């Protein structure tokens, strides 16, 4: 892991939210990449091997949970740090996420400073 500029891959289809997160992450010296759907997101994780993935649940082509399941089944990627960032407040979704060993689960609406704190915390482990 690049400790000075850790890389974060955001898999999120909302352009405005993505731009906000990009602004915030770059300002905090993170390397930033974004994909807008599940399939492209999975390919990007394989290709870029980011230090952390920020993952939405409702995504085109493959939802966040399916992407997460595939990550955990892949020997080379199963230890990828993932933080879920989703509008879903269902406890069932939270359970599913933590059963796939996500580092954290953030609900939208969220506070950008808190997101950075949680990302930094997840990267420490």
């Amino acid at each position, binding site marked *: 892991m690049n400790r000075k500029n850790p890389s974060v891959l955001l898999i999120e289809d*909302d352009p405005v939210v993505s*731009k*906000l997160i990009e602004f915030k992450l770059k300002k905090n010296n993170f390397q930033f990449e974004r994909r807008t759907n599940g399939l492209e997101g999975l390919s990007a994780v394989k290709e870029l091997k980011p230090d952390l993935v920020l993952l939405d649940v409702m995504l085109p082509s493959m939802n966040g949970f399916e992407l997460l399941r595939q990550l955990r089944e892949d020997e080379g990627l199963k230890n990828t740090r993932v933080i879920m960032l989703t509008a879903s407040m269902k406890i069932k979704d939270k359970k599913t996420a933590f059963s796939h060993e996500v580092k954290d689960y953030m609900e939208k609406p969220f*506070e*950008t400073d808190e997101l950075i704190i949680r990302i930094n915390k997840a990267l420490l482990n």
Partner: protein
Amino acid sequence: MEQLGQIGYLLMPDLNTSMNLLLIVTFVLLLATIMLFLISIGIRIHLARQGKLAEKYENEFLPAIFAYMDDDADVEGISRMFDGIKMKYSIFEKSVIKLLKNVDGEDAVKLRKLLVVEPVFNFHLNQLKSENEIERIKGCNYFRFTDLVNREIISVLKRLVHAENMYMSFSAASAMMASGELSDRSYALEAYSKRRGISKMALLELFYRFIDDSRNQTEEEAIALENIISNEDIHSGNRALLIQCVTETNYYFMIGSLQSWLESDDSKWQDPAVVVALIKAQRAFLNPDALNRLNQLLNHEDEKVVKAASEAVTELDNKIEVIDPIKPPFQTDS
């Protein structure tokens, strides 16, 4: 044969006329198709241009908004970005609202402040004064959602509450609920309640916004509501809706008035819809003092009134039975 020839002769001129007519119709249709095609291309080009412009403005605003959220820019910088271009206001607001749906806490507080920067505020104030009805509605909605009013805006909204357009009237009334003056809020609620064909949902929004602080109901507000509900000019259906709103907003300060209206012989409280609403209020507020009147209403001629009274009596009786067993521990036999 001769007859057939005559028929053929008779048909020939008609055939020529029909052919000519067919050609004319085909030509007109072709022309209309070309026109529609050109119009649709024109619309597509216009929409594409608008889309590109919207994207351009959004790309200008977003970095400025993010910088402001991160304390790297001030409101004045953003205020200077509008250049009086109408589209910029809507793109800016859409961006802020989109962000507001996704962020929380301090970020949301800052974003809300952006919705009321001076150029945006003035733009919507001008919308309120516009000749165009749609623009005026947009203006009302802005003040309805931002809860920002001053005396100038209130004076415009007071006129718009009486507008013929029902939605404008509602939106103006809702915007007026942001006023700290009880008289403004009462004016808006009363004016809207006097209209025909209003919906309960709309009235309920006004009601919730009318109440300044739901945790601190006040005598003044209760008196104002009593005056509105008992106003002679209010249609019975709307009076029933208003009473339902009192119940649903749990405005218990009005329990005394609700009971006295139920017991009143005045004609304005005799409409079955009004009586049912008053009965349901007694039931919701668990008012045991209304039991006598409720029992009398079990013999009412309207079956809806009887049903509501029966349900209220049953519920009140049950609650009183539940409360009764608690009493003995406080009684001593000694």
